[in-house]
């Protein structure tokens, strides 16, 4: 009996029920009326996307002359997994107790962190998860940390107010949460904050971190932040990053 084929990590493609069959399931809508022509259009489009043997397995009239499709196709492309690099906050995260010790040993004073959900965004649950005593999912928030003075300004905070608070409290770090991302509102808002901080000549004196379910480290860096944290982040991740940066950037 032939043994199972080995995966070639330099040329991977989707797996359905056999290695390298390339099977993908997908669904989308086309702005054309339901019918055979619509399905053919979907098939041709999938072929252009690089799928062999594209098949429409279901289609439905959405009214208003649009059609919905569920499709399968065999992906003809591959990627080299061995050459992949993803920008991440590349560090070993410390647990809360370790962060507390790190502050006591290396910084020897309270670290001040100001956070807010800014602009018109009213989602507080994310920033609360990171900052409030209670934390999230069994991980305590920054307020609970010895050696950290955490100031959570809540939601719908303007960039002006946030900066004013950071100056007043002599903050070491600013944490910004952005949850609403439709039409890239978050990008405009996050960019404005960086520009205002630069205008105040504060950029070198602060660790600037943003977070939210659609925020990646990559995007954050592109926008001029030190780090970005997405879904599944906990207070200890941010805390580890901030305290290490304080030491690294010599902001003690």
């Amino acid at each position, binding site marked *: 009996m032939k043994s199972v084929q080995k995966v070639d990590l330099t040329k991977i493609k989707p797996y359905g029920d056999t290695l390298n069959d390339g099977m993908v399931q997908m*669904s989308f*809508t086309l702005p054309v009326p339901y019918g055979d022509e619509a399905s053919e259009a979907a098939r041709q489009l999938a072929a252009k996307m690089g799928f062999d043997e594209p098949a429409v397995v279901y289609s439905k009239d*959405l*009214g208003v002359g649009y059609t*919905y499709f569920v499709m399968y196709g065999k992906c003809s492309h591959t990627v080299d997994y061995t050459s992949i690099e993803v920008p991440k906050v590349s560090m070993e995260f410390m647990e809360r107790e370790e962060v507390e010790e790190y502050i006591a040993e290396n910084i020897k004073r309270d670290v001040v962190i100001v956070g807010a959900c800014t*602009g018109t965004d009213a989602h*507080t*649950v994310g920033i609360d998860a990171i900052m409030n005593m209670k934390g999230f999912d069994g991980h305590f928030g920054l307020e609970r940390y010895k050696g950290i003075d955490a100031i959570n300004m809540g939601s719908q905070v303007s960039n002006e107010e946030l900066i004013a608070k950071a100056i007043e409290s002599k903050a070491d770090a600013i944490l910004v949460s952005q949850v609403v991302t*439709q039409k890239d*509102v978050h990008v405009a808002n996050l960019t404005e904050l960086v520009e205002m901080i630069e205008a105040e000549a504060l950029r070198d004196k602060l660790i600037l971190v943003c977070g939210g379910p659609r925020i990646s480290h990559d995007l954050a860096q592109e926008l001029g932040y030190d780090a970005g944290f997405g879904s599944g982040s906990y207070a200890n991740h941010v805390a580890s990053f901030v305290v290490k940066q304080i030491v690294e950037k010599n902001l003690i």
Partner: protein
Amino acid sequence: MVSKLNLNPELIDSARSAARNIAEDVQNFIDKNTTVAVERTVARLMGVDGVDEVEKPLPNVLIDAIKEGGGLSTGAAFWIGNAMVNTGNSPQEIAEKVSAGQIEITKLPIAHEDKIMEAVYKTAQEMVEKIKNNRARRDEYLNTIGEGRKPYLYVIVATGNIYEDVLQAQAAAKQGADIIAVIRTTGQSLLDYVPYGPTTEGFGGTYATQENFKIMRKALDQVGEEVGRYIRLCNYCSGLCMPEIAAMGAIERLDVMLNDALYGILFRDINMQRTFVDQYFSRIINGFAGVIINTGEDNYLTTSDAYEEAHTVLASQFINEQFALKAGLPEEQMGLGHAFEMNPNLENGFLYELAQAQMAREIFPKAPLKYMPPTKFMTGNIFKGHLQDAMFNLISIWTNQGLQLLGMPTEAIHTPHLQDRMLSIENAQYIFNNARSIGDEVEYKKDGIIQKRAQEVLAKAEELLKDIEKEGIFDTIEKGKFGGVKRSFTGGKGLEGVVEKDKKYFNPFIDLMLGGAK
């Protein structure tokens, strides 16, 4: 009706009476005050509309002028009426002249009270007739083309562009939706004015403007006639312009309005004094216009735990019921809110959700309850999400909910795509049809998990209401008992727009609209 949950009617009565006292207490405060939004609404209802050359709405121009002249406590109706008597102009012409700096509205000679009243009531009566006619028009539609069966399928559109919204709304109606809600853009609730004209830019939603209401109303009437079902239109009468939006909705024949002061206080940090006063007038208008209101209890469960805090939802429903009654809004128009938001990993979570929904049904038998889908525990796993929504739909048909806000499998990711809505409607239609009479067939085990859970939630709600009755609602909110969010009496946005009424104050529309058509 026999209680399937074996609920103690004495506890229900006691909770209701505590809620009545709570509402009464707030009503005493409300009756003494007015707000800039209430007065702008009076101006709008007297026919003031449009914007000046810097896009400032004329109702704002007019009310700001009255406020600056120190006349707000007498009410806009008084000043507009006085100006009408003095100039012989219409309210719109007066607003335009105030805007052009041609008259100082608070400096005109004060006419005889009878003359002012006569002018005001004549104009006010015209608007009241118009709104009555809208109501009659809706009834006519319902009697001719009819409507979908309850629970109504309620979906949202939120593209930011009213014309794109129209396309999506018409598609949804063809797929089976009964109610289309046009979600407002982020941040509109904090604007102390209502934007003007048709709009094509918004984030996470579309601006509520009178023109947008008109465009969508027309589109839904059109598609309703085509599909043979009246399609209801819903918007958001909350935030700093609560009563103005109620008025605009009444004028453009909206059918459903989100309308809840507590939501604004807790989730938008709107000042509580301001928004309770605003809410009262907005509910009078909604009541008169035959609009079903939706209250926002479901939102508490996004910031606090749905299992632990279930009684706060019930307590708030009791309070909202009393506030609505005070504003003359009948039970048939009270879309009290609640939601399917328990952690899906909770063992027997479905039974607890069922208990909650059945309990709300029994305690508010005539209310078209607004049932909200799972949102908080929706994730990028859209397939599991579709199942979560199915569980939610099953409870709705089982317990005979009124307005079913359909969950979208993509809830955790984006505002709905065209196909998401179709999948959700299909999900609900399948389950509603397949399990239509389940509620009539199935009873609950005596003292079983479901009965006990409902009894426990009711008992806790009654206890909370009695506490609130002692402390007053303002203190209760200050202590963070709803949604775990604390707000102060003098904090938040919009307090500067509240003034105490003068002895001479009057608002003709409270008089003409409170308690329905006379």
